[in-house]
């Protein structure tokens, strides 16, 4: 029981990080129907920006952890948002209206570009960060097994909840959100009704990138080791999460992230550690056979 609970905590933490990245995939897909493969790399850049900010702040003598983290969060989210906007402007907007595969290829190119850029400018070695928020809560003890909930895990859960709450409010309650939902339903019709679709799409990328940067900061703090390649693994998992939850659906992305995190963790916990990815992707494949649009995805009715 205690063991299962500990694994549940591990799985939820991992799943929330996946979910936060998955939101970026699902948003972009929802609005322009393309997979932004560079999103995982924006997450990676977010993690690097956080590391740069933290070491920069430390050299300015700002070592109070809450202040440093708040400043880092703002810095990383802002610069990553700039990256998101630029990527859309440079790599996707010129191809809008081109054939379907063009932006997809462009996205893969963007992903490789960003990866190599970071590899060359920051070096290929692993960049470490010493634990900033050590310790945690001892929940309970059973037969010599102590269930621990670290402060970092609590921080990840809280930050993710807050980000998703703000994001949900943005989409459902603001004029920008209304414009985004309109573009999602019908891009051309929205343009005809006077919505600046280019601006809306650009802002979607900005928001997605900012969320990815938050995930990058959390990832850096939780695991303490990043390199130019983390965006690939995390990106693939988050993309899978978005598909599992139903691509285009926001609650689906979070649900998918949690599920992938939990499947990986529980498979490692009770079966084989080395086959956890096989398990996660097999479950994805089986789910898609029976629910082709994912768990919460809507069936797209083609209007003729």
């Amino acid at each position, binding site marked *: 029981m205690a063991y299962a609970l500990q694994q549940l905590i591990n799985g939820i933490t991992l799943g929330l990080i996946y979910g936060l990245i998955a939101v970026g995939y699902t948003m972009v897909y929802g609005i322009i129907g393309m997979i932004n493969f560079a999103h995982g790399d924006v997450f990676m850049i977010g993690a690097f920006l956080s590391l740069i900010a933290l070491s920069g702040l430390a050299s300015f003598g700002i070592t109070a952890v809450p202040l440093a983290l708040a400043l880092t969060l703002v810095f990383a989210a802002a610069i990553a948002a700039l990256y998101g906007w630029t990527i859309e402007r440079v790599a996707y907007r010129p191809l809008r209206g081109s054939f379907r595969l063009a932006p997809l290829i462009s996205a893969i190119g963007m992903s490789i570009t960003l990866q190599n850029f970071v590899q060359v400018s920051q070096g290929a070695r692993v960049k470490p960060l010493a634990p900033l928020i050590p310790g945690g809560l001892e929940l309970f003890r059973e037969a010599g097994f102590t269930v621990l909930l670290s402060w970092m895990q609590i921080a990840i859960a809280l930050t993710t909840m807050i980000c998703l709450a703000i994001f949900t409010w943005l989409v459902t309650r603001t004029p920008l959100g209304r414009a985004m939902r309109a573009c999602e339903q019908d891009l051309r019709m929205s343009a005809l009704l006077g919505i600046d679709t280019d601006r809306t799409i650009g802002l979607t990328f900005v928001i997605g990138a900012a969320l990815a940067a938050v995930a990058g900061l959390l990832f850096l703090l939780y695991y303490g080791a990043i390199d130019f390649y983390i965006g690939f693994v995390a990106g693939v998992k988050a993309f899978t999460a978005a598909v599992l939850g139903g691509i285009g659906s926001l609650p689906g992305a979070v649900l998918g992230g949690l599920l992938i995190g939990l499947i990986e963790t529980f498979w490692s916990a009770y079966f084989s550690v080395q086959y*956890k990815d096989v398990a996660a992707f097999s479950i994805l494949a089986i789910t898609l056979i029976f629910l082709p649009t994912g768990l919460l995805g809507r069936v797209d009715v083609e209007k003729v």
Partner: protein
Amino acid sequence: MTKSFFLAGAAALPIALALTAPAEAQIQIAVAGPLTGSNATFGVQMKEGGEQAVADINAKGGVLGKKLVLNEGDDACDPKQAVSVANELADKGVVFVDGHFCSSSSIPASKVYLEQGVLQISPGSTNPAYTDNGGWNTFRVCGRDDQQGQVAGKYIAEHYKGQNIAILHDNSAYGKGLADETRKYMNQDGVKEAIYTAYVPGERDYSALVSRLKAANVSVIYIGGYQTEAGLIIRQAKEQGMNVTLISGDALVTSEFWQITGATGEGTMMTFASDPRKRPAAAAVVKEFEAKKIDPEGYVLYTYAAIQIWAEAATKAGTTDPKKVSAELKAGGPWDSVLGPIGFDAKGDVTKPDYVFYVWHDGSYHEM
């Protein structure tokens, strides 16, 4: 880690060092290694060690009444260049080569030496294939990658009997090889591991694995793998409140490990070659080097020892005929050397592995 550095673009031709034609009362031997290229540090160390050894032996009257002449071969750690250097040295009538350094050079060169009947003792090639697939002519005075497992396995069996031990690896040739060897020797000494499993390298989240270890009350983790994953696993284990000791191989002898673990890496142990400068047998020779303002670091003493051992075996065999010296090296011994007494098994590997334990303490590691 295997020292298989493939150096591309080594356009430099093997430097044929013009030496006097073999005279009657001389014995031609050679040092071959990366005198140029990115591993040149090691080649220079070998050259310094070889020159000193030859000078010392000649000062005492040489071998079998003849003086030694030291040839040099530069392979730049390039397998192709190593082959041409090997042919060149064989053509010069060299009977013994102290080299090469990179396993990727030593292995192809050893085939040439086998054909041409030249004895080879490598001071630094640790890849098992060098002697496993070698002929009668291949020897080494350093350890083998898989001997680390022997040292680690025996140590764990001796010191952690009765505790719950986990053996993990990353499924790489290096990692799995190391983990399997360690397990083999540990089991031989009657200690069974509680958990044996592979992990997925390149991930960051090992919390599920760590909780599993925690549930099995593991107090010793042996990892066959690289520093990043090992660092993350021990960090996450300590964060989950485990009281556990990490033991691993030479991949952890890098500051990267400590940067990831911080204080959670305290007490982590790993096998690595011992520092030969600190051995009592080396004291006199180390002084000689220091008088010449040379620090006998790295492979200097290994190269020195190879020539020393060869000279002893040749003297005992009463001939420099490579085949007879080879038989003597394996049958006789242990041979006195600056590395301490060294004996060879039938394959030409040292019988007493050179690996010792190092331990991480407060951001640096030192020999235990």
